[in-house]
């Protein structure tokens, strides 16, 4: 086995008593104190996450916009410098190679923020698609770490420490700022269903920023949060996780991400024809949410859903919902689902040989008050 990769904050996590686990080849904190307490802190106050295992690539050059438009189904032409969006990298069949955020820094320079487990394959995939474009992809030369500060108290904690233009600091926007004496980029984004930011900083700046945020944010209830609560938070917010809700056999349409697929944009993009064809017919499968209010056992990835004796789909993610207090899950139900064959309101989950009732519920499971 190869040595796990470590972020520059590894020693901080261990000193804070975190339990470390392997995540996509990275040694990351799964929890510092308790998943439930860290989850609650993010819903009620704020949490700080080290997500430096994620990758940041820069796509630049005179054709950067055209290349970006070819690579993803969402419409980058809508972005002004300082704005970003959520999208996917698709293969020609419309399957998802990764999901990512793209930020326009200038008209000819875009940042791609990708998942840890796919950063190498993404880099090679994107690079291999640039042949016809005057554009190049590079890993950030000064490697960037990423901290996520998430929760309703985020701006209360951040704004005294980092100058930001709050008038333009809308969701999915990004601004340059300074924090703990270092130049950083801060985006209004996250993976928890709460207001929050992600801070992109050079590796050397991560420890000072981590320390400053935790000490300054402590009176507001800020705590460090591990990947365990990150997963329960994103599940409640019904955000897909690559390898669970998304893979190369699953299209963004099936995943319920059609809002991010702009089939109407004039540019061709990889997977466009396949997605257009899929859009014109009932979907082969559909991502749904379900809840199990009576159950003490939680659904987990790979468990089968049944309607009577008929297997109708598979669980992709599931857990006790810390906010709701009962198990929830996301699953793919095997279609096609049509007016004649509507989605079932209820079904059963096979949890290690026993069937438990589950109800179809509208996603997301949790939506914050704005």
């Amino acid at each position, binding site marked *: 086995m190869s040595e796990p990769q470590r972020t520059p904050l590894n020693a901080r996590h261990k000193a804070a008593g975190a*339990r470390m686990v392997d995540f996509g080849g990275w040694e990351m904190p*799964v*929890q510092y104190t*308790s*998943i*439930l307490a860290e989850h609650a802190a993010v819903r009620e106050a704020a949490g700080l996450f080290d997500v430096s295992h994620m990758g940041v690539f820069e796509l630049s050059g005179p054709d950067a916009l055209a290349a970006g438009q070819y690579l993803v189904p969402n419409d980058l032409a809508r972005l002004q410098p300082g704005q970003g969006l959520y999208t996917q990298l698709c293969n020609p069949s419309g399957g998802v190679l990764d999901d990512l955020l793209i930020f326009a820094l200038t008209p000819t320079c875009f940042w791609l923020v990708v998942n840890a487990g796919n950063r190498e394959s993404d880099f090679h995939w994107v690079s291999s698609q640039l042949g016809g474009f005057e554009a190049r992809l590079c890993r950030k030369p000064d490697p960037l770490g990423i901290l996520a500060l998430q929760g309703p108290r985020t701006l209360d904690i951040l704004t005294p420490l980092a100058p930001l233009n709050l008038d333009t600091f809308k969701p999915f926007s990004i601004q340059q700022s300074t924090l703990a004496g270092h130049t950083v980029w801060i985006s209004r984004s996250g993976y928890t269903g709460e207001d929050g930011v992600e801070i992109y900083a050079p590796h050397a700046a991560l420890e000072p920023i981590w320390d400053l945020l935790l000490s300054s944010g402590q009176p507001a209830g800020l705590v460090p949060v591990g990947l*365990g609560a990150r*997963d*329960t938070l994103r599940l409640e917010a019904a955000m897909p996780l690559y390898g669970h809700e998304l893979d190369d056999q699953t299209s963004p349409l099936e995943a319920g991400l059609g809002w991010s697929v702009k089939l109407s944009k004039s540019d061709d993009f990889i997977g466009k024809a396949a997605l257009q064809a899929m859009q014109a017919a009932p979907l082969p499968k559909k991502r749904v949410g379900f809840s199990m209010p009576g159950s*003490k*056992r*939680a659904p*987990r990835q790979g468990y089968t859903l049944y309607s009577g004796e008929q297997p109708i789909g598979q669980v992709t993610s599931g*857990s*006790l919902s*810390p906010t709701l207090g009962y198990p929830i899950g996301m699953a793919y139900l095997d279609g096609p689902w049509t007016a004649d064959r509507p989605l079932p309101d209820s079904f059963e989950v096979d949890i*290690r040989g026993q069937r438990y009732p589950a109800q179809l519920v509208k996603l997301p499971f949790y939506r914050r008050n704005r």
Partner: protein
Amino acid sequence: MSTYYYSKTHECFRLEDGEAVVSITPYAVEQLGEVTYVQLPEVGKHFALGEAFGEVESVKTVSELYAPISGTVKAVNSSLDDAPEQLNEDPLSQGWLIRLSADKLEELDDCLDQAEYQAYLDQLA
């Protein structure tokens, strides 16, 4: 302080009135995180050494429980049904799982003692 016998699957037990009082180890509890559900067998069922007798589920994951010694279930800790958090708070006493009749005492020879279990954990780290 009782003597505990350990398995490599992180169950442990102490002998009390000729029965094995089975728990999971503090290390296992730490690895699981917050326990949300414990499934235990019925009294009277027999389990061979290493056989799965139940499961413990946490927010993060689910794990099977394996009999650290052969025996018939004499009692189960049904208070875990409503208060599974006892496993986190006090795995060795309040959070005990089942009592087994421990009918093959020669199996004790193959259990790990405290020092051997600790050495095994050190090697896992």
